[in-house]
């Protein structure tokens, strides 16, 4: 078992009170697994990704544990967490295009970063991995501004995984790219997993269609909680949570032409997480909701590896 997250809660401090962005989420990931994490914006997926590597200034660890390869991650302790960052847990951030220091040549920056973590730069490995993602070695002698957005992203991908981390968090890495670049990035990520550069990967996205192509397992979150987690093909073909079903239905199917019927969006919006109502959080938008949903449904394993948090599933 590579990663085990138990009842993890992370809150945002705001002037109006604590926003429960992540409210008791439990799941686990196996070695070699790519877990696609999907949901609409504000569902807590990015918060979850950040909690596993670095809480930002406004975030507070409100409960729960994270265990990586049998060791508990001290996620609330910024200093103690440093030992794990980069070595054990690494990140390809949402802002990869601007993640490199604009006034340092890329090779020099990578060297300085590695040295600051007590590792000598292995230029050969670096060049080899750059070649794997289709980058020439001379990018190391260039400044970030000289590279295209896609090239910068792949460079970040290589740098982030240089120490062969156990867990890689890829946060919305494809959202700013065009379709063909998206595919090559996805391919590169799969390649890194297959080569063993990263053991497991948390692939955060709002794009369910893309997730289903590269992830082994898909986890859907709603309003700070887990809604459903299942193997990718099961999730696409036989979702059980009403929210997931609506979500999958709202996707345009590949090869199907929509002439008359409109894509069915989901009516309404998620509840405020400042002081969320008790019970199932999807209740207000759910077509199946009844009185029972006033009680919070637990995430139940209805089939092997298929978890659903719904009374109706």
């Amino acid at each position, binding site marked *: 078992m590579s990663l085990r997250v138990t009842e993890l809660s992370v809150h945002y401090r705001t*002037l109006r009170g604590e926003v429960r962005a992540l409210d008791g989420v439990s799941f686990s990931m196996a070695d070699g697994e790519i877990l696609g994490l999907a949901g*609409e*914006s*504000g569902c807590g997926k990015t918060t979850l990704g950040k909690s596993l590597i670095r809480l930002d*200034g*406004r975030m507070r660890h409100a409960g729960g544990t994270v265990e990586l390869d049998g060791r508990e991650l001290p996620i609330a302790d910024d200093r103690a967490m440093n030992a794990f960052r980069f070595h054990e847990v690494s990140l390809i951030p949402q802002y990869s295009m601007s993640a490199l220091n604009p006034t340092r040549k890329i090779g020099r920056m990578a060297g300085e970063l590695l040295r600051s973590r007590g590792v000598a730069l292995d230029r050969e490995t670096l060049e080899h991995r750059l070649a794997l993602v289709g980058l020439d070695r001379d990018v190391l002698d260039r400044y970030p501004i000289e590279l295209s957005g896609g090239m910068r992203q792949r460079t970040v991908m290589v740098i982030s995984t240089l120490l062969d981390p156990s867990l890689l968090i890829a946060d919305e890495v494809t959202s700013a790219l065009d379709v063909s670049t998206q595919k090559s990035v996805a391919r590169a990520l799969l390649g890194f997993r297959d080569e063993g550069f990263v053991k497991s990967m948390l692939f955060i996205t*709002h794009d369910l269609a893309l997730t289903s192509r590269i992830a082994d397992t898909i986890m859907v979150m709603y309003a700070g909680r887990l809604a459903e987690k299942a193997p990718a093909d099961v999730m696409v073909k036989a979702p059980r949570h009403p929210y997931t079903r609506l*979500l999958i239905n*709202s996707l345009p199917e590949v090869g199907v032409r929509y002439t008359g019927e409109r894509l069915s*969006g*989901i009516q*309404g*919006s998620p509840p405020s997480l400042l002081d969320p109502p008790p019970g199932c959080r999807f209740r207000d938008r759910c077509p199946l909701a009844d009185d029972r949903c006033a009680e919070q449904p637990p995430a139940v394993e209805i089939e092997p590896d298929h978890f659903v948090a719904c009374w109706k599933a």
Partner: protein
Amino acid sequence: MTTIPDSLADNRVVRREALHFAVRNGKLVIGFAIVLVLLLIGALGPVLLGVDAPNEYVAGPMLPPSAEHWFGTTTFGQDVFTQFVHGTRTTFVVGALGGGIAAVIAMVVGFTAGYRGGLVDEVLNMFTNIVLVIPTLAVLLIVNAYLGIRSVAVQALFIGLTSWPWAARAIRAQTFSLRTRDFVDLARLSGMNTRRVIVREIAPNMSSYLFMTFILLFGGSILIASSLDFIGLGPTEGVSLGLMLQNATQWSALQLGLWWWFIPPGAAITAIVGALYVANVGLDEVFNPKLRQR
């Protein structure tokens, strides 16, 4: 998947939020409070004192501050407090007029260059850079020396005409980034002409930024005017804080130890300009959520 919030309601929320943070922002409140107090002194002081000619000789020379003459008197027996009150008024007038004129020019140049782009942008940019590089005070020296500045309004006009370039550049950059946004495209496609797009769509979306620019131009005008006054190129009629400083140094207030003559005018300028700067930082924090945490 996500619903797009009604933009009107969204605007209202943003505005309410800004107000919420504004009244709680210490820098903003203190800054504006100081400016307001001095503004009231300048606006109401001359009326309450009922003195029209602040340069009259009213008492014995070189009197230290007393109940009768709060800020003492000059070597000629002029009441420093009367001069101070009138000078503060002049300073605000110069700041508002000079800053206002500069802001108008900066907006015209900045909006046009940023929105039109292309050759218009090139030419305006070149023009801006030229005015930017020429040392403002040196030009004002020549202009004032030859033409002779009699009134505060003319002084403010020339300050406004020379101090706009940095603001024009800043506004141009902002306009440039707004130009490609959806709502501007929409307005343009719906047949609005350039001027209306700028006035109705672009300017309101950077109103907080424009206001902050004006504050800085206001403070800058006050400082330039006080330097001009001090060199002896101030308005020949009336009194200003800069002229008070000039008179004090010219008539050996330093050597005679008449600190009450030269401390108040400089302190007032420092207080007004400093408070404006601090309020500006406060405004920045209110409008820019990223800075609120600090």
